[in-house]
């Protein structure tokens, strides 16, 4: 007897919440809106917990539940079906759990805002699409969710749509994502062509007979690279990462939920889900690894020079996502998902904490105008501290275990990945502690005490046009409804890594083992030397297989190095932003060109504008608009209309109202017809 868990209910609950708030919310009181939003997202979370509790009794895994047929065309068919295995279970719990916490937090953060119901409706809508994405049992349904989260992201980035920059950021995110989606879509077409299906089970079965494309580029490599293009769009990797920093125009809870914890990790999920294909395309895996490594490094360097607290976190997110892709690229999918999970905790927490800080100082986002907040907002300070230590990779917090695992596994693939990874870990630690010191220690440099003039500062006010009216001046701790999610996430950021303690540290990496069945290598035994961790080595055999060879001692050495990198970053940040606060400016002056490059994000946006956007605008306006649209299409239409008008102007005088002239015309016509008939008759003779 197959168990029926009614998986379809989970996304549907979120959709119902979105529909109720979206359609009726305008008339609801704020309390009702909150009740609806929290009830439905909470129910989805409860349902996810129920599914998790039933998971161990499920067999077989993956557990597929077909709701109803969807597309049938010849031999090709796609159903509305949901797919549950270890990977989607973890994603399900992250999305509903972190999502629910952020819903709670938003109640406090957004309470003063206009469009309250709209915000929660969009948030629930996002949950619906994200749950569809992670539970889908076919690439096509996944694509629906994929596009849907893009839509929700667009709506939420542009939530304060009266602000030009927010509206533009929303559009930018949407358009940049289209480029990636294009790759994803082509990959789907290739799959239909070669595997005849988009169903996960069928695609993976159909892919199994193929040997790894170790030399040359076959269709598997093409699919892999195109999928990676899609993932690069959604997960903000080079070359499509440019939308994510701009996406910080959205409300902070949105940044936490969509642009840190869940949506941007969809690309990692998708690549991991397609590991059967990627394993057979080592070329594509190398591309994934290189993109991930480069993104991790470059985004981290940009993060050093940012002054907007949310921008720092945005580049940090891009960088951490780079780590995840690096892990996937070296075949350590479970390490990537592990980092995805811990990142969801600590980066979600960092954003929520940043939101709480911004809230406290009255809408100021510039870190140079913060400082000394430690004693004024103690809850926020302590939770942020946990998150900062977690992301910096200080043991025994969550980030340490996942990052260490990725670095160790990437070293097995190539020392170059490892080296860049460690340097990035150092930079990460540096800019995070820079943020931490700038915001919480030293003297307060802003002017929120004197009133809420910070709103008028140069930084865009995150609270939109609505006055920040808490009815009191000065820095203040956030309300309880915001602090509780912070504390829960802080606990998770602290202990979340303990599920994956590696063997070298006396653990047994339960997380890796749990995901083992999903990522078990399916490549036919061509590469029998699976202990040799080359780039083409089948992934997921290395966890157990490689450790005895290299030994725990080596691994512990590497762990020490990466922790050392984190501590070094902490020390440097302490030196520059706590002890010798005049030094950063001097360094920036002496290395002006470098600093300027970092502060301007390597001028990537300007470069894209010059290379892609401007030519497109020029060609569109000159060739397509003035040339084709006006010159040909409009001209043809206007011309024919003009001709018809002139012709009728002349002909209308024939209708004189004089009956005898009509009779004359009839007679002439009849004569003409008769003459023609006679002529035909004469010719026929």
């Amino acid at each position: 007897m197959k168990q029926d868990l009614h998986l379809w209910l989970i996304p549907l609950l979120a959709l119902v919440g979105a529909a109720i708030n979206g359609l009726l919310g305008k008339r609801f009181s704020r309390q009702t809106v909150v009740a609806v939003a929290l009830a439905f997202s909470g129910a989805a979370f409860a349902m996810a917990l129920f599914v998790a509790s039933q998971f161990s009794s499920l067999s077989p895994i993956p557990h597929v539940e077909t709701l109803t047929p969807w597309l049938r065309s010849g031999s090709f068919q796609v159903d509305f079906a949901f797919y549950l295995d270890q990977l989607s279970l973890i994603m399900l719990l992250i999305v509903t759990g972190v999502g629910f916490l952020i819903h709670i937090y938003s109640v406090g953060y957004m309470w003063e805002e206009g469009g309250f119901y709209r915000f929660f409706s969009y948030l629930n809508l996002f949950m619906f699409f994200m749950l569809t994405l992670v539970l889908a049992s076919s690439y096509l349904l996944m694509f629906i969710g994929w596009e849907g989260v893009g839509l929700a992201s667009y709506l939420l980035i542009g939530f304060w749509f009266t602000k030009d920059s927010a509206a533009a950021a929303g559009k930018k995110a949407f358009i940049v994502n289209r480029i990636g989606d294009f790759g994803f879509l082509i990959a789907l077409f290739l799959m239909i062509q070669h595997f005849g299906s988009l169903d996960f089970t069928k695609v993976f079965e159909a892919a199994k007979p193929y040997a790894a494309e170790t030399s040359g580029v076959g269709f598997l490599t093409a699919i892999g690279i195109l999928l990676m293009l899609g993932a690069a769009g959604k997960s903000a990797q080079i070359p499509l990462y440019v939308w994510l920093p701009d996406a910080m125009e959205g409300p902070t809870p949105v940044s936490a939920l969509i642009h840190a914890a869940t949506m941007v990790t969809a690309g990692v999920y998708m690549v991991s889900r397609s590991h059967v294909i990627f394993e057979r395309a080592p070329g594509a895996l190398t591309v994934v690894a290189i993109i991930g490594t480069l993104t991790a490094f470059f985004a981290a360097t940009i993060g050093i020079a940012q002054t907007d607290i949310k921008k720092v976190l945005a580049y940090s997110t891009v960088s951490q996502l780079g780590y995840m892709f690096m892990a996937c690229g070296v075949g350590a999918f479970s390490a990537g998902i592990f980092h995805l999970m811990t990142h969801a905790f600590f980066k979600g927490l960092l954003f929520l904490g940043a939101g709480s800080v911004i809230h406290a100082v009255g809408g100021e986002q510039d870190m140079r105008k913060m400082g000394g907040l430690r004693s004024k907002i103690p809850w926020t300070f302590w939770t942020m501290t946990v998150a900062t230590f977690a992301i910096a990779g200080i043991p025994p917090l969550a980030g340490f275990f996942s990052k260490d695992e990725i670095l160790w596994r990437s070293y097995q693939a190539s020392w170059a990945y490892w080296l860049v990874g460690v340097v990035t870990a150092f930079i990460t630690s540096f800019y995070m502690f820079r943020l931490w010191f700038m915001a919480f220690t030293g003297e307060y440099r802003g002017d929120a005490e004197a009133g809420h003039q910070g709103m008028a500062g140069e930084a865009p006010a995150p609270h939109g046009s609505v006055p920040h009216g808490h009815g009191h001046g000065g820095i203040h701790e956030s309300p309880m409804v915001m602090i509780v999610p912070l504390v829960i996430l802080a606990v998770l950021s602290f202990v979340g890594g303990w599920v994956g303690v590696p063997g070298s540290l006396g653990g047994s990496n339960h997380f890796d083992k749990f995901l083992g069945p999903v990522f078990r290598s399916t490549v036919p035994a061509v590469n029998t030397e699976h202990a040799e961790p080359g780039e083409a080595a089948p992934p997921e055999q290395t966890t157990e297989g490689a450790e005895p060879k290299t030994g725990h001692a080596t691994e512990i050495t590497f762990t020490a190095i990466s922790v050392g990198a984190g501590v070094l970053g902490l020390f440097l940040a302490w030196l520059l932003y706590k002890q010798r606060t005049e030094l950063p400016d001097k360094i920036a002056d002496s290395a002006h060109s470098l600093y300027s490059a970092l502060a301007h994000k390597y001028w990537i946006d300007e470069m894209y504008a010059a290379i892609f956007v401007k030519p497109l605008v020029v060609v569109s306006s000159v060739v397509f608009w003035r040339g084709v649209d006006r010159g040909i299409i409009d001209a043809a239409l206007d011309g024919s209309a003009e001709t018809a008008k002139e012709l009728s102007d002349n002909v209308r005088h024939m209708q004189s109202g004089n009956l005898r002239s009509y009779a004359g015309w009839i007679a002439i016509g009849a004569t003409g017809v008769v003459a023609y008939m006679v002529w035909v008759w004469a010719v026929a003779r």
Partner: protein
Amino acid sequence: MVPLSYYLILSGILFASGVTGFLIKRNIITIFMSIELMLNGVNLSFVAFAAHWQQLSGQVFVFFVMVVAAAEAAVGLAIIIALFRTRETLNIDQVNLLKL
């Protein structure tokens, strides 16, 4: 026996006088009569052909034409009466309001 051509010539003359009257007359009653003249010219050729080819269909056609002409006369005369009541004239050169 009268040859077919005689009938056809007479028919042509009738039709041509009908057309001429239709084109040159101003009185609407006269025009109406000219139309009847044209119809009868055609009728004559129909029956002439019917007799010549020993075919009944020509004569059947004539009955149809006569029925339609009767109906047309009824409607047409009603229109003319209505027209005269409103405009107090039968000169169609003065009935020229229906135009652009």
